[in-house]
């Protein structure tokens, strides 16, 4: 077991655990998108960033791929984290405004304006479907194609491969396809919908963060 400090709480975690898992273990909620406990860590969406404090400086890192190590000091909700996370959510929404998961996240974290050009690609390339297909279904029918802004999830040569068993898992796990935001008119890329209208309550699990978490409370895996 190794000992580390997360948001001022000293905790122990077994070797090989990530900071995200260690934080969740003591009830601290870090938002995630491309993370799923049943799949390998990927570290692409960067929503789960935390601040790692070292002697003279601090840096931001994705907690889902950051191994917990002895003596680590982590802040999950510092000003720097909140500021960067908001920009990342803005970027995500600007590339995929019709996801309810993202819209909920935006209202939860106080993103009230998207300052960037909206380029709706209908996909945030979180890779959940790709990993689900490969790791859970042992299929590998879909994968990433291209690089940079032309990167997309696709089937080889655009043909449904034999490996695909039409299980629908890719759609089920997708934060965009399965949970489309149905609000019609987006203002500044935001729907301002359901989450914003619901009564806000404070997280019942952890006492240290003051984030409002919406009607459903924190989702603890």
């Amino acid at each position, binding site marked *: 077991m190794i000992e580390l400090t997360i948001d001022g709480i000293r905790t122990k975690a077994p070797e090989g655990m990530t900071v995200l898992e260690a934080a969740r273990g003591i009830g601290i909620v870090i938002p995630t998108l491309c993370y799923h406990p049943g799949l390998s860590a990927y570290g*692409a969406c960067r929503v789960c960033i935390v601040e790692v404090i070292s002697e003279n400086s601090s840096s931001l890192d994705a907690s889902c791929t950051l191994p917990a190590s002895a003596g680590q000091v982590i802040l999950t909700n510092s000003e720097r984290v909140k500021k960067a996370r908001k*920009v*990342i959510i803005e*970027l995500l929404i600007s590339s995929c405004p019709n996801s309810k998961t993202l819209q909920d996240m935006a209202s939860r974290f106080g993103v009230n304006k998207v300052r960037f*050009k909206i380029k709706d690609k209908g996909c945030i390339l979180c890779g959940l479907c790709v990993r689900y297909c490969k790791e859970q279904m042992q299929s590998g029918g879909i994968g990433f194609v291209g*690089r940079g802004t*032309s990167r997309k999830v696709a089937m080889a040569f655009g043909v449904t491969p034999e490996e695909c068993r039409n299980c629908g898992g890719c759609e089920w796990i997708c934060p965009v396809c399965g949970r489309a935001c149905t609000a019609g008119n987006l203002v500044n890329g935001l729907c301002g919908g359901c989450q914003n209208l619901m009564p806000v309550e404070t997280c019942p699990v952890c006492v240290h963060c003051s984030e409002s978490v919406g009607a459903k409370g924190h989702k603890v895996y």
Partner: protein
Amino acid sequence: MKKLNSLFKLQKLQESLAEQRESPKSCIAVCGGTGCYAYGAKDVHKAFKDEIKRQRMKDKVDLMLTGCHGFCECGTLVVIHPEEIMYVRVMPEDVSEIIKESVLKKNIIERLLYIDPASGERIKYEHEIPFYSRQQRLVFGSNGLIDPTSIEDYLAIGGYSALSKVLFDMKPEEVIEEIKKSGLRGRGGGGFPSGIKWETCRDAPSPNGTRYIICNADEGDPGAYMDRSLLEGNPHSVIEGMLIGAYAIGSNKGYVYVRNEYPLAVKNLGIALEQAREYGLMGEDILSSGLSFDVKISRGGGAFVCGEESALIASLEGRMGEPRRRPPYPAVKGLWGKPTNINNVETWANVPIIINRGAEWYSRIGTKGSKGTKIFSLVGKINNTGLVEVPMGIKLREIIYDIGGGIPGGKRFKAIQTGGPSGGCIPESLIDLQVDYEKLKEVGSMMGSGGMIVMDESTCMVDIAKYFVKFLTEESCGKCVPCREGLDRILDILTDITEGNGKEGDIELLEELASVVKDTSLCALGGTAPNPILSTIRYFRDEYEIHIKEHRCPATVCKALIAFTINEDKCTGCGICAKKCPQEAISGEKKEPHKIDQEQCIKCGLCRDLCKFDAVIVS
């Protein structure tokens, strides 16, 4: 050639080859680097060959097609040894004269000499040319002395003696200690101390003892070609470095990951490896020392991001070239999960020098934290374009003015961009900055792999930032959000600014977004990509402001913000602009001032370049 199977045989061969070279015979070295190739070095070389054959002079003069000499501005370069007479811009028709005058009669042909633009003097010898005399060419100096396709040449100048020294006189731990003491840091960009990396790799657990060694030759920075020239011009020095590394780390398999866009480097490296195997300097039980090591060439598919070590390993394994999170570092868990030591071409080429001349000697060169020399590719708006090798700690001013010969056309120096596309732009006010890893980082740039792009007053800094961001947006692997989407949005904002659609607050938004991309990206590509934006905003904020507030481009580069007109007083009505305009946008009577139709004009700038009377004004 029979395999060398002992130290004695190697030393004997080195001696006899060195002796042969000592002969008073003249040797004509034609630069065969890629730059000179483009100038027609191959034809010059062929002309020399034919001429020597025709005059039956084979026993009087040697001919050699060498690697890059570095002074690419003046290609094709020809150096006549042993006098070191250097001729620049040699064409095939000059060849017979060179043979007749310089080789046979030892006369100097004045018109082919280099003219120093500062003094106007003609300089006869290579070592007297300021471009060379101010450099310290430890790694790069041998390029001009050897034929890269001949292992004999490399052996004759003492090649592979560092290898024999470590194999027979040093323990692996001592080699690592020596590298650590030398203070050598990674030349590919990261600047990590190489000795510590080697040690980590050697000490990392590997159940079956497999460890890999990789040479990173995926040099993709625009305007940078030092690794290319090393592989093309002196591949054996890199191979020797890798062999020493293999001995120190305990590896018997190595890879060179080289860009497929470097055909000559791939070819010369392949020849070099074949020769090393033939001579028993690679393969099983090298020189009967017990070390077995072989190298395989792996050609990259053209992705810039594959220069990042974890992406490179993914690509080598046959997967998509995408970085992963480090740690675990490749030194602990790399290629196929085994400890892997990756170093850049230039780092490997430094290793034999350190072993030969000692860590203490090496660590005397440079500054406190950065030791040795560094090769920079000096390009852009500079008189002496080429590759320069200088000691760490040299001032930018010395590189630009003393070695580079200043800015052409009497224009003013504006900024220098160091470290490749993700480096920063350093302004004129910091021209006395000492070049080392730390100092460059302090001012918002980086060492990178050693690109140096010089810019003069006609460069628009917003446009430059846009150019680099565009490059990086296209070359980002697209895995993580800040790099993929963040850079794309930065490019949007910069495009708006250069097209006159910039808004109040754009600069602050750029700063905020750029710092988030820098802080939260997965790998070093995203982590350094905002440098060009942040550094240009830091030093040239006023230029951004003029673009946004006044819709003006002070350097007259951004097309949407400029207009071409003709000064009626200066125009003589020669009509050349009207004749050449691709849009037929210029009209006017002969010998009367012409006019540009603004509707038709695409602002290509051809008329400005063509006009002999400076009558085309850009506003």
